[in-house]
Structures are given as C-alpha cells and as structure tokens.
C-alpha cells in the first residue's frame, strides 16, 4: 500500500537518480583534479624530500595505479561512508566535513532566512503596486542586488559595521554547539553579504509570479464577488505563488552553498567552502572529493524535500 503512495514513489525515484548524479559529479571532479599539472607525490613529500621518499609516497597513496582504479577505490569506500583521509593532515575526511558542516550551514540558513524575510515583503510590495515608483525602486534595487558581487559587499560591510563601528566581528566563526549566541553573532555579516543576491532573486521571482496571478481571470472574478484585496492576496495570491517560491528556495540554497566558498574566504570562516578551496590548491584529492560528495547529496536531498513540499502545496504534482 505504501509503495503505491505517490510521495513514496517520488522519493524512490529521487533516490535512484542520486546514484548516476554522484558518480558523474565525483568522476568529473576526480578527473579535473588529475588534470591539474604537477606531481602530487612530490608536492606531498615537501621541499626536503628525496626521490626515494617521493616514490614511497606514490606507492603509499596508490598514485601509481591507473586513474579508473584510483577512482573506483575511492567510490567503493565512499559508499561505505569511508571518505578516506586527508593527504595533508591525515585526518579522516568525514570528521573534517562533520566538523565544518554546521558552520557552513549556519551561514546558508542565515542567508536564506534574510533572503526570505526581506525578499518576500519587498516582492509583494512591488507586485501589488506594479508600475508605481515604489515598484521601480524595488525592481532597480533587486537588479543591483543580482549584479552585486558578494565579496565586494562583504568588504564594505566589514569596513563599516565592523572596523569603523565595531558592531560585528570582522573575521572568524564560533561553533554553534559551543556558543549559539556567539555563533549567530559571527554569522550576521557573512550571512548578509551572502543574502544580497538571494534577496534580489526572491523579489524578482515573487513579483513576477504574483503579478501574473493577480492579473488572472479568476482573481478578477474574486474582485467581482466582493472579496477585499487583502483577502485575495493572502488567501489566493500567495497560496498560488508558493510553488514558485519553493522553486526559488531550492535554487537559492544551492547558490548559497556555492557562494559560501567566497564569503568564507573573505571572513576567514573555517567552513566547508574554505576547506575545499585549500584542498584544491594543495591537490588534497580526498578532501575535495569528500566535499563534492557531500554537496551533491545535500543538493539532491534539498531538491527532494522541495519536490515533496510541492505535493503538499499543490497535490496535482503528486498525481502527475
């Protein structure tokens, strides 16, 4: 009976889709890392190393094996949740990811909340006053927000709110588990910088979807029946843009995860973004692969949750 549930079928389909996506994404990244010039063993051995030591490292890490063998070995271990050890620190990659994951997620969740709390009211305001000066201002600001590089905004925020006025920390992060208040305090500026593009995206998509709905025939009918504009907006307009909003949120989370790489560098935040950048520079394959693996799973999981929510706000989706 459960197997006949449309939602379970949806989850099942998504889970099956995960496999080729993970294999493809990690294979491409693994291949790209191998294409980076330079001998990894010589790099790991360091500046004082002898030729023997380099050869020893090459054998120790299986770097003499064919490319496909190396990738297959990594993948086999990864599906058993053994993401190997960092070439640089020799620490388990999974431990490193779990240590940094909450920090990055705090930024992403913070930026998402800011994007929605600022973007939704502005989007509604612009849509309900379409064509007005207010609409033009909001639309212009949102266009600016899309074009604004978040690292530039981050520098401006640090220079003013942190260095000049001392309201927020300029760098670093605190672990949420040890000091929730401090963690949020440290995450404010990076989250704002990260959210700028998100706010603009939410405003633009929401405005456009809401204008379309508010100008539809059934809304005209609702007006004819004598419903107040507020009731039409809240009961009928927003309910119908929920699917659009969910789509925007899904895309936004993926974008914020990517944007966190830059923001973490600007604020010296020890998250997954800064970890993967450093790992890529020093060719620490297991760390890069581990982060990519985690990100792929995360994005697919988020998409799956969004798909499930579609079925809640619009049951027709499940039937399809």
């Amino acid at each position, binding site marked *: 009976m459960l197997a006949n549930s449309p939602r379970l079928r949806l989850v099942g389909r998504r889970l099956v889709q995960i496999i080729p996506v993970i294999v493809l994404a990690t294979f491409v990244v693994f291949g790209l890392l191998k294409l980076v010039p330079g*001998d990894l063993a010589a790099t790991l051995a360091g500046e004082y*190393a002898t030729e023997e030591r380099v050869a020893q490292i090459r054998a120790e890490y299986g770097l003499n094996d064919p490319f496909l063998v190396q990738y297959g070995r990594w993948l086999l271990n990864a599906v058993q949740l053994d993401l190997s050890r960092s070439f640089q*620190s020799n620490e388990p990659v999974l431990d490193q990811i779990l240590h940094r994951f909450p920090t990055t997620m705090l930024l992403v969740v913070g930026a998402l909340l800011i994007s929605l709390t600022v973007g939704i009211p502005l989007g509604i305001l612009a849509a309900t006053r379409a064509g007005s000066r207010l609409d033009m201002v909001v639309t212009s600001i949102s266009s600016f927000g899309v074009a604004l590089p978040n690292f530039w905004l981050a520098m401006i925020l640090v220079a003013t709110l942190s260095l000049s006025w001392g309201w927020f920390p300029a*760098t*670093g992060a605190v672990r949420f588990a040890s000091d929730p208040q401090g963690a949020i305090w440290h995450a404010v500026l990076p989250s704002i910088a990260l959210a700028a593009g998100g706010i603009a995206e939410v405003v633009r998509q929401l405005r456009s979807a809401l204008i379309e709905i508010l100008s539809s025939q059934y809304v005209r009918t609702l007006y004819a029946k004598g419903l107040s504009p507020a009731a039409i907006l809240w009961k009928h307009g927003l309910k119908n843009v929920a699917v659009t909003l969910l789509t925007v949120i899904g895309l936004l989370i993926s974008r914020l995860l990517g944007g966190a790489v830059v923001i973490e560098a600007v604020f010296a935040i020890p998250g997954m973004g800064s970890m993967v950048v450093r790992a890529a*520079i020093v060719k620490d394959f297991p760390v890069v692969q581990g982060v990519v693996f985690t990100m792929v799973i995360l994005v697919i999981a988020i998409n799956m949750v969004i798909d499930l929510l579609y079925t809640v706000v619009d049951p027709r989706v499940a039937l399809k």
Partner: protein
Amino acid sequence: MNTPIFRSNGRIDRRTLLALTGAAAMAGGEAMAQGTPKRGGTLRLSAQSNPSSLNPQTGNSGSDHVILYPLYDTLVEWDYTTLQSKPGLAEKWVYPDPTTLVLTIRDGVMFHDGTKCDGEAVRYNLLRAKNDERSNIKSDLATVQDITASGQTVTLKLKAPDSALPLILSDRAGMISSPRAMEEHGRDYDRRPVGTGAMKFVSWADNERVVMTKNESYWKKDRPLQDGMVFQIIPELPTGLRSVTAGQNDFVYFLVPQQKALIDRARNISSSLGPTLWCIQMYINYGRPPLDNVKVRQALNFAIDREEFNRACFGGIGEPTSVVLPRAHWACAQEYANHFTYDPDRARRLLAEAGHPNGLDIVGIGYAEQLAVQQQEVLIEQMRRGGIRLSWQRFTGPPTPTAFLAEKKGDIFLAAWTGRPDPSLTYQLLFGVGSYFNAGRGEGAPGLTEALLATRTSDDIAVRKEAFRELEKIVTENALVMPLVFRPELNAFGPKVKGYRANLLGKPKFEDVWLEG
C-alpha cells in the same frame, strides 16, 4: 598620521627609513623601552598557513617555525640581529677535534609530558631525524656519522669537519621532542607535539586554529610571559590584517610590503619592519641548455634592474641584491652585493657571445598569485630590454616549486628563499650537488664543492667569513642564481602587544612579547 610609503619617485620616505632603522636596532636585541613586562593574557595571532606538521622532523614548510618555536626549545639559539649562535637546550658545545662535536645539555629541563630532557633524549631525536623514513631533515645531519650520549652529554662523531652544525641545531634538527610521546603516538605525533618549549600544546583544528597554554615549569627565568597562545589560521593576509584592526587578533605576521600603507592608515595598530634572509630570487636550472652557458646566465642577471624591481614590487623597502645573504648578515660578501648592475646592452652582448645574437626565449615557472604575477610582469619588461623574451608558466600553491625543482619544467623559477640560520646550509641547499633546490642537480661551477666544504671546516668566524667570500665569488661570477630583493619582515600588532623584536631570520619569535591591560 598617515604617511604613504610608496612615493611616486619610488624612494623610501623618511618615516619608513626611520622605521627600518629602528627595527634593525630592535632586532639587535635592544628592545624599545615599552615598560615593564607583565605576565598574563592570551596572545592571539593570525597565521597565514596551516602547519604542515607539528613534528619538526616531518614538517616541510618554512612557515611552520613560527608555530613550532613556542612548543619546542632548540639545542642552539641565535642572536636576533646577527644570527650568531648562543646556548639553548645545549648550554655549551665544543669541538675537541674537527670531527667531534660535544654538546652539554642543560640539566633539569622537562618535557611537557613530565619526562626528562637529557642526553639520551637528544640522541634519540637526532638519530630519528637522521634515519627515520618520514624525516624531512636527513640532509641537515648528513655529516653526522655516530651519536652517543652519557648523562647530559651528547657526542656527535662527524664524517668531515662541520662547523655549521651548531646553527643547524637551532633549526628543525635541534627541536627536541619527548621520546616517550614520539613512541606512544607514532605517526599521530605530527598532531600531538610534546616538547620542552614555553607553551604546551592544547589542540589543533586543521586550517582553523592551533591552541597552546603556558608551560608552568618552563626552565627559562621569567618566561613565558603569556598565559597562552592561539594561532588562528587565516590564509588571506588582508583578512588577517583586518582581524588585528578589528581587535579579534593581536598580531599578524608575514605581511607583504604593499600592506604597510594600510597599517599606517589604521589608527589602532602598529607595525614592525626589519631586514631578513627572505630573498626573492630566480632559481636557475643550469644543468641544461641554454642556461648551462655562463654567459647566458650573466646576461639574465645584467638584464634585471633590481632597484626598479624593488620600487615597483616592494615599495622600495626591500634590499636589492646580487647575493644570497643580506648586508646585515655576518657572512655577507659585501663586495658582490651590487655585482650585477643593470646593463641591458651588456646583456645583449653576452647573449650574442653565447650564440644568441637575435635574443633568447626563456620560460619561467612562477606562482599564479597576484603579487607574484606583478613581479613576473615587471621582469618580462626588464628582460625584454636585454634581448630576453621571457614567458611564464604559472601554478598555484605547492605544485609550483615541484614543477621546477622535481619535474624540471622551465628554465628559471621565481620564488622566495626563506634562508637558514647557518649560511652554509643556504649555499649547500641551493648549489650542492644533488640538492633538491639545485634543479640541475650537478656542480654549477668548478671548485664549488670544495668551496662549500671550506665554509664548514672551521668554527672561527673570521675564517668562515673568508670562506663564504670565496664561495660567493664562485656563485656570483658564474651567475648560478638571480637574487633580486630581500623582503623585509613586516608585522602588524594591536595596542596591547609590547616587547616584540624582529629577527634577521624573519620568522617571528614571541618569547619576549607581553600583553598590556
């Protein structure tokens, strides 16, 4: 007052000159009067690099030292100004004959794990440094044949006379770990260091921070001054500097000269500036054409305007040079420091004599970072005037030196040489037959190997100085390297930080630093 250091004419302004002079004086061990040292507080530092290892024997990065110094004492220490040796864990040492070095280890020194640091512990460390398969410092102790210990005495029997050893023992090879901890932790010792230093290791979150707490039973009188130290790993120097400006950290080191103007503009931070061994230079692969020809190498050297390079890339606060040791160093061959004066016509003539009348194509290996690219572009233009068509292959991070030194790509390599406490090690590593940093691996010029050996045969400083002059003569006349500029040590610190002294090695030590308030 905000005084920009980069004047349009490229000259050093008065303030910078005073700062440099002052820093040099401070580096001389005469710390500016900054009040009475106080105990307490945690010194928070912004470190650019995650340590490669906290085991001094297995680490492979020159930037590790700043983090290793508080954890480990070295057998020998050095004077901040001259880098001449002075007692450390070894309270004295003698050469009873040219091939025997006897160290007397200070009595009563304990490791952080409560075990005693005696002759046997030192012997264990030196043997491990020399023989362990993961040791990166085997070559440092290459002349050591046998090591024996008795009580607080350690005797090193040498294959050949080696007066460089005391200062070699002020570097990684002389950082003594607890044998018990090394045995217990095995490979994990890389992340769980136990030394005798002023600070005890607490934790290391990779690429995040290294935390230390004070060693209550430290042997040095009135030290440590801080209750603890925290190295925050912040790879981007501008971010590191911002963390000090915002008061989140107290000290940031290894800043680049371009940041001096930013420091001067900030009202709540100070800077220290001092000469260092940190030489920006171009390594040459003279093991194959076209740079196996001395005339071509000389042409390259004469094609560089070092003064202009210093002004363009270092704001004029570096020290232009033709040699591998700065003028402040006791072993510097002063007469060769300006040997290669800029002369593009002479460069063209030398190229023609070498069989390249229409100029020459040279491929350089360099870092892809912004400041390195700026330097590379300046060199392209300078070399063009000398008839050399220079192009660059760029890499990011550690694969860059690997490309030139291990994979033998390119003809030259633009990078820093961070120096070693004993100058013979610098020459040995750069020019020694088979050395990793000698990309060609061969002997660059006749008589070089003998000249290298001669720098280690006597422990008389005057004799050694003369030996280094002879060695530098061979290196310079054969143009085995292209030294460009010595980069100054530039650090920034908050108002609480007192007592910091720069040192000629350019790797900050914080033993005399105290926090006010």
